[in-house]
């Protein structure tokens, strides 16, 4: 699932055409607390890293800058108040220019050159990093102003974000192509046949994965070792030991 986080309503409206079965847009509200809350609400406490192994966070929004113009991929996020830096992994060739971003608590009216300024990214990164790896957190920022927010209107933000939607779509296609969740095969039927204890289950999983990596049919090895005739846990242990012996003596 791709989760797009945007801070203000007119950004969300401009991005609405991106919504699909595997992409949601979440309105965070302005500022770090709102942003962290929105991420926390999205990835509630029941999720583990494994559950979210193919989920992606994209923070899309407008930002300020003294001298930069356009759409940027953020390669460094500094939390201005905390003095902490965060680094999303840039592992895809996107063709987008990159820039560092500083997340501030109040609008920066005198931005330094060479930097982008926003009010949410560090919180999204920090909250997201509890469950999502740094290569699956992407920060796209488009410059709307140079700190003089009085000139920014809903209409101008909407138009700015909409103008970059085709480029954002390209990037999302690239992200979708790169998502390859690890498949975890269940060996439940073998556990039952072998009357497996918790530690035996670990051994069975290990042997099945090793057999597969050696290009062998692990299930067939267990069948040949007598898995279907097991009547007790001790018998299951013997079968597991036989399979281990076969797999470790393939010379």
């Amino acid at each position, binding site marked *: 699932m791709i989760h797009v986080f945007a801070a203000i309503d007119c950004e969300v409206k401009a991005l609405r055409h991106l919504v699909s079965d595997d992409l949601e847009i979440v309105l965070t509200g302005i500022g770090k607390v709102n942003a962290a809350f929105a991420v926390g609400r999205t990835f509630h406490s029941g999720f583990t890293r494994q559950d979210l192994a193919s989920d992606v966070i994209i923070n899309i929004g407008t930002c300020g800058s003294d001298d930069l113009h356009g759409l940027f991929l953020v390669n460094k996020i500094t939390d201005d108040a905390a003095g902490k830096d965060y680094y999303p992994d840039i592992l895809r060739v996107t063709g987008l220019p990159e820039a560092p971003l500083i997340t501030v608590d109040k609008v920066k009216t005198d931005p330094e050159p060479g930097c982008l300024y926003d009010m949410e990214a560090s919180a999204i990164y920090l909250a997201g990093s509890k469950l999502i790896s740094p*290569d699956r957190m992407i920060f796209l920022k488009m410059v709307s102003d140079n700190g003089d927010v009085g000139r920014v209107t809903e209409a101008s933000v909407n138009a700015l974000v909409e103008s970059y939607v085709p480029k954002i779509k390209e990037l999302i296609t690239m992200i979708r192509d790169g998502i390859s969740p690890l498949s975890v095969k269940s060996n439940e039927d073998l556990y039952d046949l072998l009357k497996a204890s918790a530690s035996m289950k670990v051994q069975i999983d290990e*042997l099945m994965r090793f057999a597969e990596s050696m290009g062998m049919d692990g299930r067939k090895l267990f069948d040949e070792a007598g898995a279907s005739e097991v009547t007790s846990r001790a018998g299951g242990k013997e079968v597991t030991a036989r399979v281990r012996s076969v797999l470790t003596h393939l010379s």
Partner: protein
Amino acid sequence: MCAAFSHIYLESRAEDYPETKRLLEKFSDSTVVSIRHYKDVFNRPAQDSRLQNGSKSLILAVNDRKKIFDASPVCQDFGMGKFYYAESAMNCVFSCDYCFLKGMYGTSNVVIFVNQEDYLKECEEKLKEGPVYLCASFDTDLGALSKVSGWMNVWEGFASTHPDLTLELRTKSVVDSFRNDPNIIYAFTLSPDEVIDQFEKMTPSLDARIACVNQAIAKDAQVRLCFDPLIYIKNFELCYNRFVDKILQSIDLTRVRDISIGTFRISSDYLPNLRKACPDSSAVLFPFDREDGFCVYPADVRSRLIGIIKNELEKAGYGNKLYIIP
């Protein structure tokens, strides 16, 4: 091979070192990101080292803590006394499935420490206490990095002027220059092509490594051959028998200083990360025995693997050159 790095993360305090300037010039196409401390990037939680493998980043940093460490007890010390390793760089431009670095670091990015003089000073302090045996290519492959970093030359130059230092430079790479100082040992890890193709990604072929060994021998350099780690694969007896025959035919072992033999072994703490990094690799999915905190092959498998190499080399008259980790 000269690795290209998409990004260079640069510690502010590393900016003025000559090695930094040289590397930034060499990789002028890389995007440079300024950082406070290398750990902010290198030690990020839950990095996808598999994905990073296809797009490694380089981190340039200053090491302000200990630089030279006591070697691990599972490393062969070749009968030398004070055995240390230097952390000149962290991680490798190669990507071997079974490498302990994958288990230890949880990232594929490479750190090069640029304060080379500080390392040499620390080594000089160790030398004041007596002769030192130093493995300088331990947390990395300095030979492979030699196309990038000047570290290998730095250590070679230092060893040339410090005869009490025995320097080991271990590599799977094809190094193109050698010194013939008696205290500089070029240690080449050799594996059958079947193992190289499956598990030692981005490394040179066996033929290329053998050619490099012969080049070092021709230059009268001290050469060590490392048949370590021996890896369990299908038909390993046939495969390693052919391999050792090839070595005997292609390399004049009378001119090799010594030969180490060992089977794959890894700290139990590192195996989960290794399996995460290489989830389909039989090299790390093997159902290992656990012994004293290490994952090892069962004793009979270890004995058979080592026996193949040991017996052939003994038969050929090189038994006195062997160092074996049982």
